[in-house]
């Protein structure tokens, strides 16, 4: 049987020989379907995870303007009722999210309110671990997406299972088996040659990769080093091959997030068999001067998501994509004296896509019944994950998450999932 490692080795030869790419890249998915692990309806479906790092102030993103307690708690760090973009009679989006409101009006945006978990942890890092591992206890657990990769992407897998835009591999995608490409821009994502000897370009790279394969398995970091080197070379060849066939249909915002979304649209259009994408925006840790800082960030997010969605629509791919946002926690209901807010707990998150059933889900936390000044969550974040896993990706959600969590009806055409194994 061909192991993933063998496959990757052969793949190096295939790619450098310039053979056609697509059959190789989609083969993992086909194999998984044939083995009944993955529902055929999910074949083209991808998940895009958008991290809002630092702890986003959910109360000012989805504003409970119908609740007078909100205005009591927020004397200065507040969104006036007449500025919120209304989603219903008492709830509205932050005024800088006009583009996202358009998607709401088109029925492509679901807002889940009050998302959190029991015994909330107010440390950025511990709470990020909890969100990314979906494990409230074990610090060393694999990422929740990594666990999904391990279960449904077969050993002969793709060249790339996941792509993260940015500097590092997000913990959510961490697994010992999956190949996750981390890309900042496609322009720089390539191995540079010695220009004095162009004829040596391929042999030189191959010799280097052979050194990584020859590196003894028992030596320090052997698995990581060989995995990273092979994955880097092969994913760069694969991703760069998509450049030829893709032209953005919209003008993306000219910032890091906009460029990142454009890269994702290109990779999705390239049909590389990549199931999960991760992209992030930082700076939400607004302990001081929150109003301006958060407005700027939410506008970037809203404009970026809107451009991405419209571009996918124009390429006929909006039905295949589900976007999910998350942040490690919301912020304290009561503002502090630096015109900011400190670390808090539950917050809303967004789901966007052509098959999303738009609307409000969950329940906004009660501002009059808090826990030591912190919002009580009404929806466990693992319910959102469970829904995404089995109703969108057709994955064994209960197995991945290690337990059964209530599903939310935000997917319009749920695939029904595969029954939890056993």
């Amino acid at each position: 049987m061909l192991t993933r490692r063998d496959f990757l080795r052969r793949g190096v030869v295939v790619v450098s020989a310039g053979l056609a790419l697509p059959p190789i890249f989609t083969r993992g998915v086909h194999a998984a379907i044939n083995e009944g692990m993955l529902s055929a309806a999910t074949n083209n479906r991808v998940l895009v995870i958008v991290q809002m790092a630092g702890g986003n102030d959910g109360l000012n993103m989805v504003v409970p303007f119908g609740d007078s307690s909100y205005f009591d708690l927020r004397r200065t760090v507040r969104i006036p009722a007449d500025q919120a973009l209304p989603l219903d009679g008492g709830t509205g989006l932050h005024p800088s999210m006009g583009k996202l409101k358009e998607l709401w009006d088109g029925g492509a945006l679901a807002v889940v309110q009050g998302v959190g978990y029991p015994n909330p942890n107010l440390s950025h890092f511990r709470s990020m671990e909890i969100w990314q591992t979906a494990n409230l206890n074990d610090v060393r657990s694999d990422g929740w997406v990594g666990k999904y990769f391990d279960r449904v992407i077969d050993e002969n897998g793709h060249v790339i299972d996941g792509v993260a835009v940015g500097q590092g591999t997000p913990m959510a995608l961490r697994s010992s088996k999956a190949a996750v490409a981390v890309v900042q821009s496609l322009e720089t994502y390539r191995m540079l040659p010695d220009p004095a000897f162009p004829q040596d370009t391929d042999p030189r790279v191959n010799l280097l990769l052979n050194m990584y394969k020859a590196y003894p398995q028992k030596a320090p970091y052997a698995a990581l080093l060989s995995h990273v080197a092979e994955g880097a070379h092969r994913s760069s060849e694969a991703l760069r091959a998509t450049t030829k066939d893709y032209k953005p249909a919209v003008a993306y915002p000219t910032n890091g997030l906009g460029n990142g979304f454009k890269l994702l649209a290109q990779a999705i259009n390239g049909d590389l068999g990549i199931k999960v994408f991760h992209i992030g925006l930082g700076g939400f840790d607004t302990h001081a001067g929150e109003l301006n800082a958060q407005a700027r960030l939410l506008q970037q997010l809203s404009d970026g998501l809107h451009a991405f969605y419209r571009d996918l629509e124009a390429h006929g791919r909006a039905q295949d994509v589900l976007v999910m946002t998350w942040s490690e926690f919301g912020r304290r209901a009561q503002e502090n004296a630096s015109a900011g807010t400190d670390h808090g707990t539950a917050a809303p998150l967004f789901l966007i896509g052509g098959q999303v059933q738009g609307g409000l889900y969950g329940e906004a936390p009660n501002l009059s019944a808090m826990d030591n000044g912190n919002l009580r969550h009404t929806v466990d974040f693992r319910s959102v994950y469970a829904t995404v896993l089995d109703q969108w990706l057709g994955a064994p959600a209960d197995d991945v998450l290690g337990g059964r969590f209530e599903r939310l009806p935000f997917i319009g055409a749920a695939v029904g999932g595969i029954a939890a194994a056993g």
Partner: protein
Amino acid sequence: MGTTAAIAGPLKQLISRRGFISASMLPTIEGLKQAAPKDGPSDPPPNPLADPSVRVAHLLRRAGFSGSKSELDGYTALGFEATVDYLLNYDAVADPIQERLDAFDFDSDDREALRRWWMIRMVHSTRPLQEKMTLFWHGLLTSGFSKVNSAGLLRRQNEFFRANALSNFRDIMRGISKDAAMLIWLDGRGSRKQHPNENYARELMELFTMGEGNYTEQDVLQAARAFTGWRVSQEGEVTLSRTAFDGGSKTFLGRTGRFSAGDIVDIILEQPATAAYLSRRLFSFFAYRNPPPPFVEMLSGVYFNSGYDIKAMVRAILLSEEFSSATAYRSQVRSPVDLAVGVHRAWGLETDGQYPANGARNMGQDVFDPPNVAGWPGGPAWLNSASWMSRANFVNGLVIRRKGPPATVIDLSSVVAANGISGPKQFKAFVTRLLLDGNLSPEVDALLSEYLFGSQPLTLEPRSLDRKGRTLVYLLMASPEYQLL
């Protein structure tokens, strides 16, 4: 080649200061050589660090940023323990770095210039451990341009770390608690007693001193009250406002009093959790991750017995059996700064700071701009597809000819001439020793030998050095072994 002078100067100083040896005797020192470390119970034989020259190279990588050929030879002759002393007692070493920095017209508020300024220091300093500790503090007690938005204040913070690199943890923690850049980074600036800002109080305990799980949310709230009142003027002057400071009684970690910011720091420093946390952080930085618990206990003892003396702790680590054990050898993923600076130091390259600063940024470590308040996670997190490619491309840029001033790229013909390299086999041995202790796995070594000495074998002619010699140097610096420290 300025490297020989650079090492000879400080060594001479040390030698005359210590008075036990004359500079002319350097190449023939025997008596100072350190005996090979005993293998610990968990050490699988053989330990590459049993070789005195490898052990010194390991020390220079960890307590500095790798060594040049002359540094490796000179310190090996001096011996391991004397080299530890020399690195630790850097106050006695002249550091002519200011002349280099004066030559640059850095605008004090230019972010690019600030990164270059520090890179020049790391590449050219005669006090590598002082710069390495400055990097340690920048990673632990971090602040970043993304929020501080002032190169001047970040430079001041960096100078504070440098001045206190091996000083007392109390001075460091009291100082950083009222450092202008830190007050901006963690929102101490403008925090008032009416609604104290919790940011600094929380991260002080979680990330800087004790670690999560050693305090309660109530302790965060109480400490936050003691950190109220700080103001930072436009010019970066830090003052305490009596009216904004909460001088009332606080109960913190089981003690009650009208605590000030300094009192809170002092209480934190007395905690065993702080001793253990700092011990683990220092040991992980110099030796390897997950230090053995008995060692943490021993190092915590050093922390308390020395009155929080960082130099005593670092000395205990560098001289420990663990530091020179097989477990420690190549146990760390080489950080981007270690790679960018280390390549320059190993080859004795000149730099205006730009190439290493941009390189480290592309590899995932943009100095003065950490990813978040916890600094860089480091370890395996340094390696992913993008950062690995940036590493290969960074070293590529130093071996292919780039436009630029002389001595900023690796010139193999000069290296061959300067070191009296007599043939292609000697050339391979020289670069393998310089970069990788001469220690390659047989499998990797066989691949390289086949490439070098198979068809069209390497010669020392310029054309062959350009083609195969350069490729060898590229491959070694992009190799799996070189990504480790």
